[in-house]
């Protein structure tokens, strides 16, 4: 049976790993290729690179990071941030990514999902979603790093992207992100129960049991964390050992 995946995420700006808290107060934490190698050693099942560069020059540096990592790390690489067109997807896959993650641009132009899936296959199109609770059992989708409310119902959006051919969803809870209070179980459950593609849980991981809890209580097939792994509060290996001992199938 398929193993549940533990995925560390690296935010990269101008060729360096950075980490912000609640999308602000960004600080540099290291060399992305070295970080990816370390996560690989720890047993990461996949590695996500997120480009938060704003400039054209930065994009080239970022793709070099992907290229270098692909020479040293032999697990699937997912690359997100700044992908706006089919050509961007192609360029990113050619640099060595196995999947791309599209977020804001997919909301602005949903056809990007369909076109990407048609040309490159659904398996390499992951749709990232930032969502926030607005009422009991109701969430809306935000874009631009959680700054702009699109007044788009989360579950409607999930149905839309699944129809368009998305291969996977990476669901980030704006409410949980940065709190370290655990994944947003209620929101994840609502999404997992309403789609048949894999869902990656993101936002809120603070302690080791949070990972077990998200696999136990929701249909999420993977759990993603950034700062927890960056600042070595936990290693990927510790999380996997813990989940394995609790009966979760992990690699």
């Amino acid at each position: 049976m398929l193993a549940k995946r533990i995925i560390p995420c690296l935010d990269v700006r101008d060729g360096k790993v950075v980490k912000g808290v609640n999308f602000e107060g960004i600080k540099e934490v290291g060399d992305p290729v070295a970080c990816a190698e370390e996560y690989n050693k720890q047993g990461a099942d996949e590695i996500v690179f997120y480009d938060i560069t704003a400039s054209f020059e930065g994009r080239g540096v970022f793709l070099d990071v992907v290229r270098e990592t692909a020479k040293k790390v032999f697990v699937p690489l997912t690359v997100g941030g700044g992908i706006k067109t089919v050509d961007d997807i192609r360029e990113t896959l050619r640099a060595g990514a196995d999947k791309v993650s599209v977020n804001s641009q997919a909301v602005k132009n949903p056809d990007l999902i369909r076109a990407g899936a048609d040309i490159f296959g659904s398996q390499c199109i992951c749709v990232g979603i930032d969502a926030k609770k607005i009422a009991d059992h109701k969430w809306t989708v935000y874009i631009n790093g959680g700054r702009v409310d699109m007044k788009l119902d989360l579950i409607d959006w999930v149905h839309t992207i699944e129809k368009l051919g998305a291969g996977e969803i990476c669901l980030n809870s704006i409410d949980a992100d940065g709190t370290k209070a655990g994944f947003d179980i209620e929101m994840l459950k609502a999404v997992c129960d309403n789609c048949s593609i894999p869902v990656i849980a993101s936002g809120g991981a603070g302690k080791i049991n949070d990972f077990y809890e998200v696999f136990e209580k929701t249909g999420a097939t993977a759990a993603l964390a950034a700062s927890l792994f960056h600042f070595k509060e936990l290693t990927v290996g510790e999380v996997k050992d813990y989940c394995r001992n609790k009966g979760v199938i992990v690699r």
Partner: protein
Amino acid sequence: MIAIIDYGAGNIFSVKNALDYLGFENKLTSDKDDLIKADALILPGVGAFPEAMKMLGNSGLTDVIKEEGKKKPLLGICLGMQMLFEKGYEFEETDGLGLIGGKVDKIVAPGYIIPHMGWNKLEKLNDCPLMNGLGDNEYVYFVHSFQAYCDDANIAAYCEYPDKVPALVTDGKFVFGAQFHPEKSGNTGLQILKNFGGLIK
């Protein structure tokens, strides 16, 4: 030299990256003479069966691969593994390379997500030199919607999803096929590629 057959399908660079990392001399090529000169061949592939067989035919490499696969180690990866069989049934019936007996058809797994994508465990069925040095708890990375249907004798290892899905197949001589991506399967995948490179005489 290991020739990585470049006929226009799939992400061949990750296979090259893995061989470079392991220190095996290799070449991305669509040149018939390279395939004849090579010590071993890798047939990668991502996409659909009929289109890939067509592209291989257009490259004029089909017969060379069939011939060389009888003389030197050949490893098909993912769709490249599926193409080793006699027939494929993706969209339409298509002739494969026929190096291993059997056919390729849809994965039947009601209630399960298709494609079968992610890390799944290798269950050993028959001895195979590509599995040297592997333990009993090895996971490899899959992405596919079709699978091989063949004799158990040709299956070195399978995985469960929930039925038996052939993962590593062989003709018992020079031909091997990996339904998973060894180049994306961490240390387990690297060990399998290293074993394959080790078959070079």
